[in-house]
C-alpha cells in the first residue's frame, strides 16, 4: 500500500495519476477536494474520465430506515466479497445537522474488521444538508473510487424514510433493507422508496415477524413488475452473517438481468445524470459563496426590513452571480 503525501505532488495531474495507480492517500485527498468544491477537483474527475476505464464498476446501493442494519449488512457483504476475491470500496453517508452543519459519522463503527486489507477502502460522508439520501458529491466520490480500481462500490445512504430515492439514480442495484415491526402491509404498498428496490433484504431475520414481512413483500411484488423483473426477497441476519451469501447472489442476479436486458445502459445514463446534477449544484454553491459579503449582507438587511421580498432577493443574488461569471476569469 502506498500512501505518500508530499504537498508539492498534489497537482490535479499527479493526484489523478496516483489514483489510477491505486494510491489510497491520493484517493482520500481527492475525495476531500471534491467534497469541499475545490476547483482542482473538477479537473481531477475529468482527467480520470480521460484516462481510466469508468464503466466497469458495479455500484450497489444500500438503503433503508435508521437502525435497520445497513452498515452491519454492508460490513457482512464486504466480508463476503473479500472471500470471493473481490475488492470493495464503501461510501457511508450520514446526516449533517440542520442547525450547525456538523455531523456524527458513525457507520464506520460497524465495519471494524477490514483494517490492513488493501482490498477495502471506506469513506464516511456527511450529506452536507442535501436531501435525497446522498450528498451532492457522492456520485463523484464513487467515480474516484472506481478509477482507483474498485470494481464494486457499495453506497450506503442516510437512514431513509419514504421518499429518499436518489440512490436509484446512482446504483446499478438498490438493496432496500427492512426489519420486522415497522408497520403493516399497507406501508409496503406506498409509492416512493418501496418502488426503487431491486432486492429486498429482510434483516434481523431471527426476530419475530421477519418471515411474515418477507411473505408480505413477496405478495406485494407480484402486483407490478414493469420491466419483467421481480425483486427477490432475502432474509438476512447481518450480525451472524446468515443469508448474506444469498443476498450477494441475488444482487448479482439482478445485475445479470440488467446486462441481458440491456437495461444497464439506462442505469449508466442515470448515473451520468446524477453526476451532472451534483456537479451543477457544486458550481452553484461555489457561485453563491463567490458573492461579495457586503453585497450579501446588504440583500439580507433589505430582506429583514421587508424592503425586498424573498423572490426579488433571489433575483438580485442571481444577477450578482451572472455578473461575477461575466466579470471573473
Amino acid at each position, binding site marked *: 500500500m502506498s500512501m505518500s*503525501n508530499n504537498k508539492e505532488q498534489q497537482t490535479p495531474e499527479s493526484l489523478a495519476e496516483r489514483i489510477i495507480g491505486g494510491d489510497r*492517500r491520493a484517493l482520500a485527498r481527492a475525495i476531500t477536494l471534491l467534497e469541499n468544491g475545490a476547483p482542482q477537483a473538477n479537473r481531477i474527475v475529468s482527467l480520470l474520465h480521460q484516462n481510466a476505464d469508468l464503466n466497469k464498476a458495479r455500484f450497489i446501493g444500500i438503503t433503508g430506515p435508521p437502525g435497520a442494519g445497513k452498515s452491519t449488512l454492508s460490513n457482512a457483504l464486504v466480508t463476503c466479497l473479500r472471500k470471493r476475491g473481490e475488492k470493495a470500496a464503501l461510501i457511508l453517508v450520514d446526516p449533517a445537522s440542520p442547525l450547525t452543519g*456538523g455531523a456524527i459519522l458513525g457507520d*464506520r463503527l460497524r465495519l471494524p474488521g477490514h*483494517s490492513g486489507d488493501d482490498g477495502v477502502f471506506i469513506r464516511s460522508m456527511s450529506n452536507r444538508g442535501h436531501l435525497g439520501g446522498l450528498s451532492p458529491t457522492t456520485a463523484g466520490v464513487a467515480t474516484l473510487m472506481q478509477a482507483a480500481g474498485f470494481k464494486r462500490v457499495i453506497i450506503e445512504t442516510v437512514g431513509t424514510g419514504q421518499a429518499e430515492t436518489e440512490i436509484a439514480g446512482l446504483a446499478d442495484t438498490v438493496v432496500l433493507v427492512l426489519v420486522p415491526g415497522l408497520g403493516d402491509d399497507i406501508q409496503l404498498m406506498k409509492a416512493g422508496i418501496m418502488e426503487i428496490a431491486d432486492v429486498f433484504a429482510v434483516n434481523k431475520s431471527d426476530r419475530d415477524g421477519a418471515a411474515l414481512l418477507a411473505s408480505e413483500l413477496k405478495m406485494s411484488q407480484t402486483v407490478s413488475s414493469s420491466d419483467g423483473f421481480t425483486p427477490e426477497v432475502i432474509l438476512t441476519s447481518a450480525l451472524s452473517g446468515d443469508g448474506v451469501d444469498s443476498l450477494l447472489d441475488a444482487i448479482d442476479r439482478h445485475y445479470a438481468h440488467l446486462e441481458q436486458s440491456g437495461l444497464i445502459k439506462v442505469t449508466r445514463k442515470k448515473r451520468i445524470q446524477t453526476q451532472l446534477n451534483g456537479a451543477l449544484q457544486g458550481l452553484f454553491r461555489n457561485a453563491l459563496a463567490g458573492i461579495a459579503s457586503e453585497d450579501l449582507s446588504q440583500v439580507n438587511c433589505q430582506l429583514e426590513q421587508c424592503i425586498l421580498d424573498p423572490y426579488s432577493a433571489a433575483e438580485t443574488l442571481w444577477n450578482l452571480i451572472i455578473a461575477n461569471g461575466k466579470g471573473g476569469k
Partner: protein
Amino acid sequence: MATIRVLIAKPGLDGHDRGAKVIARALRDAGMEVIYTGLRQTPEQIVEAALQEDVNALGLSCLSGAHNHLFPRVVELLREQGAADILVFGGGVIPQEDIPDLKAAGVVEIFTPGTSTVDVVEFLNKHVNVK
C-alpha cells in the same frame, strides 16, 4: 466550503466511551464532521481510518492507563505514513506528570477530566487550518 473533519478514537482495551462520545457530540455541535470509530481499536486501525477519512485532527481517548504507550504509537505511525500534518490530541484520566512526555512525543494537547467542551472546540478551531 471546507469543514473540519475529526476522528475520535478509543485505542486500547477499556470500555469507557462516555468521554469520547461527549467530545464527539460537542464537535458536531460546533459544526465539525466527526468520525467515531468505537471501542478497542489498535493504533494501526486508527491510523488507517484517519488516512482513508483524510481527517484534519485525531482525538484519542484512553482511560486504561496505557496512554503512554498508545498515544505516541499513533503519532509514530502517522509520521511513518507521511501524515504528520494530522493534529493529534488526547484525553482521559491522564496523570499530570505524564503530559510533558506525551507532548514531547507529538501529542499536541491533553485534556483531562473537568475540561470544558468549549476549550476543545476552541483548541481545534485555533490549530486546524482548513482551506
